[in-house]
């Protein structure tokens, strides 16, 4: 952080990726829209287009990088806690969401601006693409651990889709948080706690497995 501030004060003579992100974020939030062109943006921030393109191909690429940064920072935060390794999958996922919520709080205006621009809630917006890929990779490793310990039920074909389920879940939490007006976003904490409990009730061994088992039995018998 400090480094970027300093470099900005020195009128960005050696332009870093972080400085470009910061300048872009500031423009977006004060003007309420993307800069008209990379040319205009570079001119206003006294850098050359070469310097810009050395780091990013477009404004969308900057947004993507900011979101991926959130994820990387969250993961770094989790790894800094020694106790984290011993957590169950459920606790790991809870900690992830709580940490992410905490991190996003520091950048709430930008996140809200981004989420507001989402027109079609069914498809993944461009700025979230890299974020999504890294999230799914992370969640898959946690889920696989859970399957190893028996915390999560093994369900052929179905359990491959869990990562997508959790992605939808994460989107729900983001939207909840965006609308949350409680002090300190306390209600988001409650939403996280309760929804993760529900999710683990669903993916743990339980009713669903018995239902699947029974369904399979009926299906096999209907063929005879």
């Amino acid at each position, binding site marked *: 952080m400090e480094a970027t501030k300093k470099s900005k004060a020195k009128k960005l003579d050696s332009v870093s990726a972080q400085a470009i992100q910061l300048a872009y974020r500031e423009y977006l939030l004060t003007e309420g829209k993307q800069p008209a062109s990379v040319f205009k943006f570079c001119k206003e921030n006294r850098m050359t287009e070469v310097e810009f393109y050395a780091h990013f191909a477009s404004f969308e690429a900057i947004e993507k990088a900011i979101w991926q940064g959130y994820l990387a920072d969250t993961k770094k935060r989790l790894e800094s806690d020694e106790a984290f390794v011993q957590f169950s999958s459920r606790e790991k996922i809870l900690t992830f969401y709580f940490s992410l919520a905490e991190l996003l709080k520091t950048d709430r205006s930008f996140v809200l601006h981004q989420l507001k621009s989402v027109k079609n809630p069914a498809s993944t917006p461009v700025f979230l693409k890299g974020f999504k890929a890294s999230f799914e990779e992370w969640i898959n490793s946690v889920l696989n651990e859970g399957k190893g310990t028996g915390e999560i039920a093994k369900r052929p074909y179905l359990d491959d889709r869990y990562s997508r389920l959790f992605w939808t879940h994460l989107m729900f939490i983001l939207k909840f948080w965006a*609308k949350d007006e409680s002090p300190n976003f306390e209600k988001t904490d409650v939403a996280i706690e309760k929804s993760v409990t529900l999710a683990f009730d669903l993916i743990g061994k339980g009713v669903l497995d018995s239902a699947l088992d029974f369904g399979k039995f009926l299906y096999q018998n209907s063929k005879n």
Partner: protein
Amino acid sequence: MKTQRMAKVKEQESIPVTKVQRATKFITTGARIGGNYLKHYGKKLVNPELTKDQLHQDNASDIYKSLSQLKGSALKIAQMLSMDKNLLPTAYQNQFALAQYSAPPLSYPLVVRTFEKYFKKRPNEIFDTFTQSARNAASMGQVHEATLKGKKLAVKIQYPGVGDSVKSDLAMVKPIALRMFNLNASEYDEYILEVQTRMLEEADYSLELERSMNLSVRCKDIQNLVFPTYYPAFSSDKILTMDWLEGKTLGEFLKTETLSKVEANRIGQAMWDFYHFQIHQLKELHADPHPGNFIITKEKKLGIIDFGCVKVIPADFYPQYFQLLEKDILQDNAKLEKAFYELRFIYEDDSAKDKKFFIEIFAQLVELLGRPFRTKEFDFDDKAYFESIYLFGERLSKLKELRESKKARGVKHAIYINRTYFGLYNLLHDLKAKVNTASWVPF
């Protein structure tokens, strides 16, 4: 345009989910209680001998089941109702008595999250050790055990959002409470407003910290009492840190161990003195005499651990209420009547018949509940005495006149004082203690 609207609707749906879920929970409970009544009357047609015990049992377990799935205020209501157990059929008591110890625990990550919010540090960065799972549940939170520099500490953490849900929970509990406990609507509103105020206070751990420190210092000279030290540096709106008192809670202790007569009397006396010192000297009191809020230490002393619920006795209410304990009040009709007007047991515009009826009823109540004060020493092991309170309560709850009265009989400030006395009498009864009751009586 269309997609935007859809998105909006979707989001709105997602937010009140918990509220809707809770509401449906209460509605289904209501329906089930209705069903229980039907079942009862159906059976009764066939077998007129049938008592209401089974019905009460069914109702109690259904209510308990739905309340125990809720946290915070609803759980607290279950607790409160269990406190007034002498005014409730026996079947309810046992079910509600369970309420204090069973609430689904907060996950450890959420505990960490709460710490980080208030102290910018994880619990294991503040304390030398910190248990990942809760050692005890409290009605609005849970207790973790920690150590710091060789000292064992109790760290109480509140469920997030408890304060918020108090109001909506109380509103939803209304239809059931009216039906279950035979309260009329005006009585209920007065009752609930007072309860709501106390509960919102209870959800504020900073206030609890202040009160705990204040009251425990002022009560420190009373014999055979133990108070934990509180740690403001490790406390916040949602976290409260105090010494871990070694021993068992009173409820647990009485289930597993026995006290000698001398020990029981000593603990009972300490409890009596604790309450009457607060009532008559401090004019504010720990209004939650619940077996989970007391610890019996190894030295067989009484540890006091929860000042979440404190009732301040207003200056004008104090003489109104405690004149009922004056020695000659039951012999002096004019005086008794005046007191009843002040306490709103009777009203100027009551009919002569109503007036006579209520004076009679409440005079009996005053006689019965004031009995321990009219002797120097009272044996709370007296089963006949508690049986008569219970029977009287049963009679009160069935009184048509009382239930159909459109007016609230009684003053709201009395709610927590009455509750405290009920709790205190019950605890002393459970302890089988004989107590010198004259020690703090002001008259």
